[in-house]
């Protein structure tokens, strides 16, 4: 990811990695860490670790006929595990939240059926002097793989058949004013595309367009490669949930 911040002539690049593991079929854990590199005008560059994060996520509702999914999650950022020189907080934070996904494939809307909406809302409780923040995000996407597999055999080049145009919006609003921290709302709009042909990996790339002064200025880019270990190594310990329900004989 690359982004510019206002009043701070800095170009920032993040290299992050996330490992997700199913504990049961409904409960998963996600571990996230990464490096932040900052190029500063008039000063030397600096590279350091971001804070380590862990998230527990539980699939509370799954309704395949209506293409609906609802999950609850609890994320914890471990304060002080990153490098303060790159902006990692000394104090941690815990965020309970909820995510949902809704496909429109069950509606009689023809070629609009591949549309899907996903969303997230959470409240970050900061430790110590760290400001509490309300966070939310929403995405709208149009899945070409869904179009050619569930709606119509549209004639198009092979590579297009794996594309999903997507636009995401991220929003964060500090709800308490702390004397030494900013309190402005950040809002990023991220249009992009992801590609998957069901081979165990997915590639996504999005522009990051800041829309408020607190968000920064200049357009950034985020690229994500998702490798599905449960697809590539399905019969190994890595690919299976830790606890699998009993199988009928």
């Amino acid at each position: 990811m690359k982004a510019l911040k206002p009043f701070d002539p800095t170009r920032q690049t993040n290299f992050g990695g996330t490992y997700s593991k199913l504990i049961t079929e409904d409960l998963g854990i996600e571990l996230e860490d990464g490096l932040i590199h900052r190029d500063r005008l008039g000063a030397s560059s600096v590279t350091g670790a971001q804070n380590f994060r862990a998230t527990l996520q539980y699939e509370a509702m799954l309704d395949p006929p209506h293409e609906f999914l609802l999950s609850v999650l609890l994320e914890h950022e471990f304060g002080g595990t990153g490098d303060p020189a790159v902006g990692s907080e000394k104090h941690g934070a815990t965020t309970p939240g909820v995510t949902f996904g809704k496909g429109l494939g069950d509606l009689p809307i023809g070629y609009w059926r591949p549309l899907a909406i996903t969303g997230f809302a959470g409240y970050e409780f900061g430790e110590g002097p760290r400001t509490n923040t309300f966070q939310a995000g929403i995405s709208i996407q149009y899945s070409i793989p869904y179009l050619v597999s569930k709606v119509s055999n549209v004639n198009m080049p092979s590579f297009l058949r794996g594309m999903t145009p997507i636009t995401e919006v991220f929003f964060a609003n500090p709800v308490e004013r702390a004397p030494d921290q900013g309190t402005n709302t950040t809002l990023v709009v991220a249009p992009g595309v992801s590609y998957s042909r069901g081979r165990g990996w997915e590639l996504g790339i999005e522009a990051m367009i800041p829309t408020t002064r607190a968000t920064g200025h200049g357009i950034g880019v985020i690229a994500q490669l998702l490798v599905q270990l449960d697809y590539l190594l399905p019969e190994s310990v890595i690919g299976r949930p830790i606890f699998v329900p009993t199988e009928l004989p």
Partner: protein
Amino acid sequence: MPRFENTNRKLGVLFAILGLILWVDTAAATPAGTVVAVSGSCTDHGRVLDRGDAVQVGDTIDVPTGGNLKLQMTDRSVISVAPDSSMTVVGYSIDAPSRNVRLSLTRGALRAQVSSIRDPSTFEVATASGTASVASASADWFIKAQPDAAQVAVLVGTIDLRSAVTGDSVSIPARWGTRLETGLDPVLPRIWAQREFNAVIRLTGTNDPAAL
């Protein structure tokens, strides 16, 4: 005497023709497997099947509503056919160490527990929507044929599912499944929950207490 010799010659010709017919019939009736469990009035071209009956290449097996059938094939693979299903053994050739198996599922569902084989082999099940084929040395998987779609789920191994119309295919690994609607590309595979597998295991199970 000449009349008697003439009769003997005619009988000899008749026996030769009969023998030839029997030989040709035996050669054409390639054994594919044996019924090891059956419940309900399952038929093969109208003939009611019992445990121990042979199933041959070219046979079409019909399992009625409420019935079940389990076959032990000649390569030690096991095929369990669900109620309200119709399956044809199009080909079942075992020329060790290779294997060439072609089944056709017109309707219903089956579970194929495909035995391990070292050399390249073909084990495929065709439906109106597309063809599913084993892409691993062995496999334990399910296929369901509906009027306008096919569904595949894999417990062990890897299965390729190819659309009959678009030619597009997906690979389905163990514990994943997917669906193929007639005339379209296969849906991208997803992880199947154990409760979904249990439902198809029940569907293709047999009530015969003497089952394997």
